[in-house]
């Protein structure tokens, strides 16, 4: 597996705040990696540094083995779709046309299809579009560019659930036909959980999780049942969350749970519920995990 993006002790400080704090992470070629975390966690900053739009305060970042800053050769192989992208006062079709000049892998047919799918009025000025349509323009550009590295930073502001699903479907379909490196940052974690091959979680500028998505499933479990039975079962496990109503208890503990233990739970009349990726991320964001890799 060749890492196509690498950061090494990357720090970005601004007015005393550390948007990125000693970030060392690698992104693998031809993989869909989710960049997850709360608002203001540092996802956008990381993506901006990777695309040479922000300057590191210390540490390094390399893309295709080179520093992306002011590097035309590298920049041309990346497409970065942001939420609230600013455009000059031009029409939708002008923006699409301009994008076609700059991206070497541009697929004009795909662009046309996507414009139709998102029902974008080609002759309308971008600043006159609704928020959802505005976002759709960025998505069309990001997908049709077929850039070797495509970064999406919460690109669906204002898009309804159906359009979002449309975006995910399109992304998957095109990715299957034309594999490339994709970084997708989002706070709508459960919507994209099945798309991701790798997960990176950032909180307060630090990396909290950096693991394959498959490894994460089953790292925690929620035990539901009569309080006394639950308590005896979870004894000795790391407890993440306690809840319950009356004599019913709901306790989330760190897993994984061995098959023998599953049998025990069954005998005690307990239910073992899986923990969603969203819950895992929320938990990771909340804990002080130093150097979790």
């Amino acid at each position, binding site marked *: 597996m060749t890492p196509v993006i690498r950061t090494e002790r990357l720090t970005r400080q601004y007015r005393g705040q550390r948007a990125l704090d000693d970030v060392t992470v690698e992104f693998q070629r031809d993989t869909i990696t989710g960049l997850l975390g709360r608002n203001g966690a540092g996802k956008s900053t990381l993506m*901006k540094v990777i*695309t*040479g*739009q*922000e*300057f590191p305060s210390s540490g390094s970042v390399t893309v295709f083995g080179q520093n992306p800053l*002011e*590097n*035309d*050769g590298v*920049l*041309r*192989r*990346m*497409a*970065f*779709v*942001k939420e609230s*992208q*600013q*455009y*000059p*006062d*031009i029409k939708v079709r*002008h*923006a699409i*046309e*301009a*994008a076609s*000049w*700059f*991206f070497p892998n541009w697929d004009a047919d795909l662009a046309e299809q996507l414009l139709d799918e998102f029902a974008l009025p080609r002759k309308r000025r971008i600043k006159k579009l609704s928020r959802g349509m505005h976002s759709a323009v*960025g998505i069309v*550009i990001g997908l049709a560019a077929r*850039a070797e590295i495509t970064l999406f930073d919460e690109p669906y502001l204002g898009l309804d659930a159906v359009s979002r699903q449309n975006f995910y479907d399109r992304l998957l379909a095109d990715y299957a036909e034309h594999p490339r490196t994709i970084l997708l940052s989002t706070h709508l974690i459960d919507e994209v959980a099945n798309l991701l091959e790798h997960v990176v979680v950032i909180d307060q500028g630090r990396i909290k999780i950096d693991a394959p998505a498959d490894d994460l499933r089953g790292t925690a479990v929620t035990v539901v049942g009569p309080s006394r039975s639950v308590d005896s079962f979870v004894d000795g496990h790391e407890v993440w969350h306690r809840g319950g109503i009356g004599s019913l208890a709901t306790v989330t503990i760190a897993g994984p749970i061995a098959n023998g233990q599953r049998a025990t739970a069954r005998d005690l009349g307990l239910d073992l519920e899986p923990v969603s990726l969203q819950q895992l991320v929320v938990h990771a964001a909340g804990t002080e995990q130093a150097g979790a890799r």
Partner: protein
Amino acid sequence: MSTTTIATSRRASTLDAIVKVGRLHLIDRVSYAVLPWGILAFTFLVNVVIFSLVPAPPEGFYTGSLLSIYIFMIVLGVLSMTKAVPFAFTLGVSRRTYYLGTVGLAVATSAVWAALLTALWAIEGWTDGWGLQMHLFRVPWVFDGPWYQVLLTSFVLLVTMFLAGMWYGLANRRWGITGVLALTAALVVVVLILIVAIILTDSWSAVGRYLGDLDLVGATGIIALIAVVLGLCGFATIRRITT
């Protein structure tokens, strides 16, 4: 591929990108062609109407309408560094390429406009001020000599205006309005210091003589120098710009 081929192809693709940046700005054809010349045409007609209704004074009619074209260049310069910048970054353009592309466009536009202005200046001369003794393009001292001087001076002035606008736009983007005010204040201070230095070293008369002896070519040269300085300042400013 040998290293020279790689180097030339890289230079070729950078040149390609620079041209594309120019095309990017020119999507807004209205601002780059229709508006400035439309305004000029309009003021021209207004002047013609007024001057045809009024008897001509002995020295003819003088109007400063030409100024609009030059002011417009400043505006274009400012606009080139506002909304298009984040979009260009998304398209994978480096700051350096974006700046060079825009400067290239400034030079090309100025060349075309200067040629047009010179042509109109010539026609004004041949038609004796459009038959009304109107001096719109034939501005005394500045646009008064042979046609190549008019062409050169127009060109240099237009480029300088654009570059000044670019720097203003960039300063605003990087430091905000307070930054721009600070920059203006700093420039004023620099000029003041220069003036004070001149007075203190009692070189005022020398400077005055130099400026008085300055012919158009010399003046154009100084403006060209200012243009270069503006270009460099703009480049330094864009280096640390973030969107």
